């Protein structure tokens, strides 16, 4: 019973739910502000994403006559719930060890594509030709970026497991790093770390990989027909997804807490965790987004197949050899 309560608390309040929503909107605000700064602009205030959400709540919801209404309404909710559950599963070093018995890499592999699925459902059910285009682009990109993700997950699991076979449990991966130092500093894991860092803009659709929602090409693709609160849910979903992928990369590469847990240590560790997320955000999203344009779909696809996947595979191979 307590386990269920714990899971509900984790999904709705902390570390999923409210905490992740607030953190996601804040990170988005920081991202926009820093991109503006990099382009020599002033940029919006940090709380602008929250204002956007409030604004969208006041707007009218339009649903196309030809759309499948159930799927159309379900898609954003599906994406957001999937991401909230994922956020609850992710452990934070020195603060939270995940819901007991649930967090493991295979579950994450199933949960991570849910927002993309939501977008695909949205694009498919909106009956707009641009939505359908966005749907096919999103699916192509998903096939492209899932490969390096799986390979780097496996690399981490094999490296952590050593001779006793791969470890898929996230708490075990964190324990290994608490004892042996973060995987980010492990030369064997460096290519996989790079692949994970490149996976983040790929899955968020930023910079080079802004392909499924390309505004001038397919007019925001799957989101084209959405307005009002449903669009707000999509924006919340993307905010939570940003936090989830950042937290995932932090958990896999460098979850080490700053001080021992207990007392005020939890708060310090939480801040430290957010700092790590911010640094990763700057590297993999903000600078990337500010400096790059958009690739064509085939270029984006072959980028992941040609460069990112081999990086992760190299790590996997090395980890396998050195186990």
């Amino acid at each position, binding site marked *: 019973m307590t386990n269920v309560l714990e899971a509900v608390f984790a999904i709705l309040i902390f570390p999923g739910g409210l905490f992740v929503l607030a953190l996601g909107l804040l990170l988005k605000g920081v991202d926009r502000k820093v991109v503006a*700064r990099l382009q020599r602009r*002033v940029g919006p205030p940090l709380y602008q994403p929250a204002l956007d959400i409030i604004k969208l709540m006041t707007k009218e919801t339009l649903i196309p006559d030809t759309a499948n209404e159930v799927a159309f309404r379900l898609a954003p909710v599906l994406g957001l719930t999937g991401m909230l559950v994922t956020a609850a599963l992710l452990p934070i070093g020195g603060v939270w060890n995940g819901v007991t018995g649930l967090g493991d890499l295979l579950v994450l592999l199933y949960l991570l594509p849910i927002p993309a699925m939501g977008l695909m459902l949205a694009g498919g059910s909106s009956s707009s030709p641009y939505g359908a285009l966005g749907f096919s682009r999103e699916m192509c990109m998903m096939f492209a970026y899932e490969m390096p993700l799986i390979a780097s997950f496996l690399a981490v699991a094999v490296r952590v497991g050593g001779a006793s076979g791969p470890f898929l449990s996230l708490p075990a991966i964190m324990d290994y790093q608490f004892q042996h130092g973060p995987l980010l500093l492990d030369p064997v894991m460096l290519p996989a770390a790079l692949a994970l860092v490149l996976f983040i803009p790929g899955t968020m659709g930023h910079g080079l990989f802004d392909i499924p929602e390309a505004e001038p090409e397919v007019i925001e693709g799957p989101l084209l027909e959405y307005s009002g609160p449903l669009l707000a849910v999509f924006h919340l979903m993307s905010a939570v997804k940003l936090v989830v992928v950042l937290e995932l990369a932090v958990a896999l590469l460098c979850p080490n807490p700053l001080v021992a847990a207990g007392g005020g240590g939890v708060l310090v560790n939480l801040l430290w965790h957010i700092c790590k997320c911010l640094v990763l955000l700057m590297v993999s999203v903000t600078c990337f987004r500010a400096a790059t344009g958009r690739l064509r779909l085939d270029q984006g696809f072959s980028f992941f197949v040609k460069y990112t996947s081999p990086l992760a595979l190299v790590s996997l191979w090395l980890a396998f050899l050195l186990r």
Partner: protein
Amino acid sequence: MFPFLKIMLRNLLLGPSTDAFPFAPAKTHENFRGCAVFDPEKCILCGICHHVCAAGAIQLRPSEDGAGMQYLLWHNSCVFCGMCAHYCPTGALTMSNNWHLAHTGAEMFSNCISSFIPFGECAQCGAKIQPRPQAIIDKLGVRSPERFLLCPQCKRQSIVRNVAQVRSTRRQENP
């Protein structure tokens, strides 16, 4: 390799290059062609501005009682080409550098220069002629100030009278 990193670093250090405009007045060049400004004191109703206006923004409407003309310049049609100001013989029309023209839809039909210009009167017969403000008399009518104030008919008569006078004096001198 990666020249954009250098550019981004420089941008970070240089800081924003944004104008403070909505919160502070924007810098405007003094030769900026903004909305036209009309000085009814100088207008002689010659109509050249109406003739050259490419967008048809200038209208001259005779008033019903025939006492003058209604001069209208619609800012919502004006394309700021400046031809009217260029051709205006008296400098009644000039281009200012004021570009604060945004207005609400309710003000659509009031966003114009509208002024009534009364006709002048012929100094001799009292017929309606184009206005003859003092500023214009000083500028255009310096050669023959008294004839400048006459209506075309009186002007013609006065010229004929002058010519006849000159001829008769000549005849008296050389019979």
